[in-house]
């Protein structure tokens, strides 16, 4: 049973002191280092988004908003309220119970009250009351309403880009208010004024032009994957042979481009390629749908829909039966929460059936897209893989539930099942920090940019603190995850808070443990480092 506080403890915890200033009167800190760099105008233009502004900085006093900026926001807000009944409910039903207040990693790390989800939502809700409710119009500030001013816009920009849309707060809300969706609406409204950040819109624009966030062209994408094939051959003696844009393949495999271009994701990519070769999967990669990530989720519903459509357009063009998706975060949130009503149903595809085990993935009957962790867990459960977990013995592993697969699709047990089969040393972090209660890496939803490194470190503190616990208690030295943003964001987070803990994708560990047909004796892991620590020490 939960350890509830005694009545006296509860009374003692009430602080009767009034704040020195009302929250509305405390301006956001927009000094350099406290905001993400704003987007370049060219990205807005490329994506067909309103580009009202020339180059600007949030630290400028005057943001040169268009003359009719208030009308743009008012009409935009009205439009969103008309489109999404959920938004109207979220605006109306909050009773300020405070259940969410101390659940946000940014609040826990900063102590800034505007990072309490309830107050972050209030930034938008106060304007909603003023503009769209009778009580707000009559009672004004007494009724919690406030007028939309340029300072409010600045506040929105500051705090809607200090939310990683992880949805931990929504787990605790008794009314089920999804504060992440409030942030999404806030960002969508800001985008109407051309206010968005470069780390989101540049990848989104690149995705339109070359198919992936980094702007890698098709031939370079293919060459990079072939480079991994060379590495795999060096390590295992087995040549893997992926195909590209092959019509008639049974399965299209889509993964975040970070797996192809950023370490340690690249080792996870090698793990996928080895697995598919080993089981003889009839699959193809696409240089057009070469990105699982969907930065539209952080921009607007329309942008999310347009980017998500690429994968399905490509699967239709190639004539595949279904889609297998790699270790990505927000790709899965889009697929599981929004795909059906946005782009779906994908009725030109078939309900996924594993060609190896015959398992029918009924949970993917609408989206026709299966998560690689489910796919691999099914292979292991049906004894289709020969695994040598001792090859991962130098890794003492814990698992970070990436927010989107965890809270967005309930993927808790499959990755753990795979981990327990591919490594001998696995320890979970404390219960209140994993599964649906998992703490964010602190850099999700487009915040994984270097100019706000301090903010990322304080936002990631609760996650790092739980890793520190298992590091001290069990000697954990490897943090596994199923998200490309995590694989990019967690290494610096560990480096700052828990030095000595590395970061890996799930399928990197699968690739290490997988005993492939015809392979030579392995002496190194996928990072080309000795399999055992003694060998590493002997080399030094």
């Amino acid at each position, binding site marked *: 049973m939960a350890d509830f506080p005694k009545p006296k403890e509860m009374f*003692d915890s009430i602080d009767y*002191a009034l*704040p020195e200033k009302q929250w509305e009167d405390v301006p956001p800190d927009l000094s350099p280092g406290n905001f993400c760099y704003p987007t370049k105008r060219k990205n807005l233009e490329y994506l067909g988004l309103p580009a009202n502004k020339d180059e600007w900085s949030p630290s400028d006093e005057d943001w040169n908003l268009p003359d009719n900026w208030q009308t743009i926001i008012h009409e935009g807000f009205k439009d969103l309220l008309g489109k999404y009944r959920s938004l109207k409910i979220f605006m109306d039903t909050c009773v300020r119970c405070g259940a969410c207040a101390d659940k946000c990693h940014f609040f*826990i790390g900063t102590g800034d009250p505007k990072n309490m989800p309830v107050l972050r939502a209030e930034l938008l809700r106060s304007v909603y009351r003023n503009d769209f409710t009778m009580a707000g119009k009559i009672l004004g500030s007494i009724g919690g309403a406030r007028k939309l001013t340029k300072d409010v816009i600045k506040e929105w920009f500051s705090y809607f880009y200090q939310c990683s849309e992880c949805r931990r707060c929504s787990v605790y809300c008794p009314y089920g208010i999804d504060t992440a969706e409030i942030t999404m609406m806030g960002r969508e409204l800001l985008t109407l004024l051309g206010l968005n950040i470069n780390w989101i819109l540049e990848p989104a624009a690149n995705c339109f032009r070359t198919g992936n966030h980094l702007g890698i062209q098709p031939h370079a994408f293919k*060459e990079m994957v072939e480079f991994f094939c060379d590495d795999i051959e060096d390590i295992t003696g087995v040549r893997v042979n992926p195909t590209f844009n092959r019509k008639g393949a049974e399965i299209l495999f889509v993964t975040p481009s970070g797996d192809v271009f950023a370490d340690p994701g690249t080792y996870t990519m090698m793990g996928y390629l080895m697995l598919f070769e080993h089981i003889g999967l009839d699959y193809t990669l696409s240089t057009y749908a070469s990105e699982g990530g969907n930065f539209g989720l952080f921009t607007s519903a329309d942008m999310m829909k347009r980017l998500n459509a690429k994968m399905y357009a490509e699967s239709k063009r190639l004539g595949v039966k279904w889609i297998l998706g790699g270790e990505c975060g927000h790709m899965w949130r889009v697929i599981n929460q929004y795909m059906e009503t946005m782009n779906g149903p994908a009725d030109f595809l078939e309900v996924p059936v594993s060609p190896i085990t015959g398992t029918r993935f009924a949970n993917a009957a609408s989206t026709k897209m299966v998560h690689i962790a489910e796919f691999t867990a099914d292979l292991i459960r049906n004894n289709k893989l020969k695994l040598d977990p001792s090859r991962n013995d130098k890794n003492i592993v814990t698992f970070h539930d990436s927010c989107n697969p965890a809270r967005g699709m309930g993927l808790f047990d499959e990755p753990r099942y795979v981990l327990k089969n591919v490594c001998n040393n696995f320890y979970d972090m404390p219960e209140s920090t994993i599964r649906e209660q998992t703490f964010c890496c602190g850099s999700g939803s487009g915040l994984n940019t270097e100019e706000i490194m301090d903010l990322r470190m304080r936002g990631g503190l609760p996650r790092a*603190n739980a890793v520190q616990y298992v590091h001290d208690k069990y000697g954990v030295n490897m943090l596994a995850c199923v998200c490309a943003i995590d694989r990019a964001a967690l290494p610096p987070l560990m480096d700052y808070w828990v030095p000595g803990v590395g970061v890996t994708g799930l399928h990197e560990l699968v690739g290490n443990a997988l005993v492939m047909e015809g392979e030579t004796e392995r002496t190194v892991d996928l990072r080309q480092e000795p399999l055992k620590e003694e060998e590493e020490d002997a080399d030094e």
Partner: protein
Amino acid sequence: MDTISTEKKQRLSQNWFSVIINTYPTESKAFFGKNKDLFANPVGNTIKRNIERLTHEVLLLDLNRDHVKEALEPIIRIRAVQEFSISDALAFIFAFKTIFRKENPSLSQTEEGRLYLEALDANIDEIVLMALDIYMSCKHKIYTLRINEAKKHVRQLLIKKNLMCEVPETGVEIIR
């Protein structure tokens, strides 16, 4: 002065902790100060645990720098990435001089007491200097992480695409 009671040490530590917690906004003081769940409130609990250790160390006239560093480092590591200027982040350390004097008002009336206070003040000053070093090393780490992230974006690609060629590892035969 080796007779400071456990209760008094706890009061000193609690008061020192309150000084730190009071540097946060009113709305978050209660949470940082009173939530005892290590995982729900890492900031408050890390500070509380280590300020207790630091209180114990600072009261020893013969300062053990290693022990002080172990207690000080986790606190400064947190405050170095929060929205404080360096002076605001570290000012709490000086506060112990006042906290101790308030708790021991008669101490300055004896020679032995005055000598103890002098030694204690010297300890505090030394701890401030150590905190400065720790703070700067944390900031240095942040800048290094930022630089590494910027470098990493392109470097691996250039190497893998053979657009950049590094000097081989020692022991690799070099063809001249």
